[in-house]
């Protein structure tokens, strides 16, 4: 039983591209809907939730009828600008059905590293939460390309957790958690339930590739965990499925928990 998790009030939840889209990159509306329903329940329970959602490039590609994966960086950025408008609209619609308002916040690493803009972003997040609105964050891909190139927002989500002084970051993706070995190679690999610190061995375990559309492997998640542990923020890596969030907040041992 993870008691501390059940008591967390300020929570950042990051969902990866692969969890809300089909393998061709287009959106899986059912999955987004069940994700939004689960967040709605947590919101109802009085938890302050901040969402970090990827997926804009895939949505943009779908909108433009692209059947191939975009390759050029500027093309990815353009698709992200098209796709973000669509993606936020879908979240808006699904949350509206639950009578919840959303606010869109687009960030870059530089914004967070700069004292003034970080303070502004922090104020915006606090303002939204105080008004009962769920902030939905993504990287501002028009101006920054860091998360397009690598990480699929893993790193950004840790920065957001720190900025918003949250107690918990949950990273939802298509992997169950951290394994003792690469489960694609060794079927006997064991899921590690808790990590207290990021040792050299843990960093070695994290070297692997992400899926075709998402760019976040385990490495960027472990880097995010390191940032969180430094600030005493707990972090969970889990595979997204309907009701998983409810189970996590019952204190069930799902995925890998990073906690001192």
């Amino acid at each position: 039983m993870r008691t501390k998790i059940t008591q967390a009030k300020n929570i950042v939840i990051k969902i990866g591209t692969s969890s809300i889209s089909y393998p061709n990159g287009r959106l899986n509306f059912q999955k987004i809907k069940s994700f939004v329903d689960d967040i709605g329940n947590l919101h109802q329970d009085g938890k302050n939730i901040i969402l970090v959602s990827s997926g804009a490039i895939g949505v943009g590609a779908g909108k433009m009828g692209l059947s191939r994966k975009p390759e050029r960086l500027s093309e990815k950025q353009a698709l992200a600008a098209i796709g973000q408008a669509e993606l936020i609209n879908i979240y808006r619609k699904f949350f509206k059905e639950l009578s919840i308002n959303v606010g869109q916040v687009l960030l870059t690493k530089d914004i967070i590293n700069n004292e003034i803009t970080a303070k502004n972003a922090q104020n915006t997040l606090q303002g939204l939460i105080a008004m009962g609105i769920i902030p939905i964050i993504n990287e501002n891909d028009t101006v920054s390309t860091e998360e397009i190139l690598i990480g699929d927002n893993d790193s950004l989500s840790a920065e957001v957790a720190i900025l918003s002084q949250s107690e918990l970051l949950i990273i939802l993706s298509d992997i169950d958690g951290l394994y003792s070995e690469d489960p694609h190679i060794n079927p006997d690999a064991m899921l590690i339930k808790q990590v207290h610190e990021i040792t050299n061995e843990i960093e070695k375990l994290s070297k692997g590739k992400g899926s075709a559309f998402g760019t976040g492997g385990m490495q960027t998640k472990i880097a995010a965990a390191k940032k969180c542990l430094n600030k005493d923020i707990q972090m969970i890596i889990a595979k997204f499925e309907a009701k998983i969030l409810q189970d996590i907040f019952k204190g069930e041992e799902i995925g890998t928990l990073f906690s001192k």
Partner: protein
Amino acid sequence: MSDNYTFKILISISDKTISFTNGTINQKTLDDLCLLISDINNSGKKIIVVSAGAILLGTQMLKIKERAENISVKQAIAAVGQVELIKNYQNIFNIYGQNVAQVLLTRKMMQNSSYAKNIKATLGELLNKNIIPIVNENDSVSTDDIELEDNYPLSVKLADTLNIDIIIIASDIKHKFHVLKRDSLKAVTCYSSNELLSYLDDIGYKKHLSGNFPINKHDILIN
């Protein structure tokens, strides 16, 4: 056949352009503007929209009665309203067969050379694909223009970053537009969408313009 240079246009829309005096959105004016912009795009010119309206729509969405004074409340309203604003544009432009993209910027970002390069690449790509970029100030991270309540400074900075030839300022008065060419300090006023469209057609440049847009909007209009 014309061998004219395809000039780039930026249209700047303020809160007041698209709202009634009581602060609610004037959907008809917004629709008229989208139709005008669709025509400019369909005529083969490249157009970028800089549009305010997030605070307006956020205030309406959240049913806030008084004008927000607290800056973080204003920023939160803008984060909510931007979602409404972009949806509104998507809905209208969809009718006219146009695709849109959302771009949130600050003037500071464009002073950073690597960001400026990214912004140029993204917007260039969008224009090549005939997609209309809808640009607004990223109020969540910058409070430069949220205080000013005018997006002319952002428009000029963006126009310089992208080598825009013409800025159209949609005024507070319906169907009244100030057109500013890079090579002239004086704005030309058009009193209807049709007048504006034929004015733009008559320009017929062979190459992009040089010169500087006035930094202060006031300087253009007093002539």
